[in-house]
């Protein structure tokens, strides 16, 4: 017995070699359709409510739990990600500063060979200059700076981190610092690489 297709006045049926039905126009199938209202495959984040006094959706941190390569201040870890950098624990850095992103450090979070998402680099300062800003009460959070699609070829790339408005200074309680000012230098005490997946829904429809 061979595979067959049977066309009658009201249906089309194909059968496999074992006579089982592989396709029947009486069935409803899913098909790709740009106008399809059924969305599938995209990554969707949940609301992440956090805060003190002001409770907000934690969109600044991506709302997605895939936090890859978290580094909690281990100087050696920086060399994985910043092979051309010279950042070590307790080293003061001026701003803006430029880092090199290497292919090998990022290719493990690709999908289909393409990186889908955004990265956010979060630096925590343990002390900061000017000195009247108290020790241990300042975070320097640099976020939204790297859209990975801009370096998706991954031959490596240079990324420059700037002072505000491209960065935001937070107090330790998560509130925005009341009087942010240009940071002449700070001491880097931690490094996180946060990966945020982008929605990539495929529009599909059910055949009539």
């Amino acid at each position: 017995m061979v595979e067959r297709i049977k066309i009658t006045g009201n249906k089309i049926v194909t059968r496999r070699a074992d006579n089982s039905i592989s396709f029947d126009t009486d069935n409803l199938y899913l098909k790709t359709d740009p106008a399809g209202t059924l969305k599938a495959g995209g990554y969707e984040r949940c609301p992440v409510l956090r805060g003190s006094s002001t409770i907000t959706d934690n969109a600044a941190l991506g709302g997605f739990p895939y936090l890859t390569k978290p580094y909690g201040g281990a100087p050696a870890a920086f060399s994985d990600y910043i092979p051309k950098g010279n950042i070590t624990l307790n080293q003061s850095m001026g701003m803006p500063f430029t880092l090199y992103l290497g292919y090998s450090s990022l290719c493990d979070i690709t999908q289909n060979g393409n990186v889908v998402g955004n990265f956010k680099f979060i630096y925590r300062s343990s002390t900061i200059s000017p000195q009247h800003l108290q020790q241990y009460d300042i975070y320097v959070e640099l976020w939204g700076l790297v859209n990975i699609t801009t370096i998706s070829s991954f031959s490596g790339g240079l990324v420059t981190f700037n002072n505000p408005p491209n960065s935001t200074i937070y107090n330790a309680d998560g509130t925005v610092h009341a009087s942010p000012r240009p940071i002449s230098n700070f001491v880097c005490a931690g490094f996180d690489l946060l990966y945020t997946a982008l929605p990539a829904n495929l529009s599909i429809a059910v055949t009539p």
Partner: protein
Amino acid sequence: MSLNITATEIQIQNALGVVKFTSNNKLVYPRASKTGTITLGSASVSIPFTTMSDSEFLSLSFKINSCDGNVGSALIGTEIPANGSIITKFYGRAVNNTPAADTDYMGALLVGDQLVFRAVKAAYNTTSLTASDVTTNLTYKATIFSYL
């Protein structure tokens, strides 16, 4: 029912003359699937699966078997579509007479050929994510659909 074949397209219409689909449409079919049960705590869990091509997508769902978070524990036994993240614990309270809130959440992503599950906490008083203190046992179902 009719089958119309032209130089550029094959079209199948139903008995009412409505186009069911054409050869320019792509039918969606499941190519690979995997189910399993894991216990997710503060450490991420990686499950070998398979890579996807550009014309494929992942559909993922969780069924929580047990969870010590107040949100996750309310979802036990329910199959949840979860391409992304779900809340496992929400902790709202007053700190120094001001409202404060933490959220623990978890999710999964296909990274290369690995399904990576991870849980984190967005605490009220920090600006970065920390390890979640919620433990969740869940059964996942991952399916890669293709539309080649």
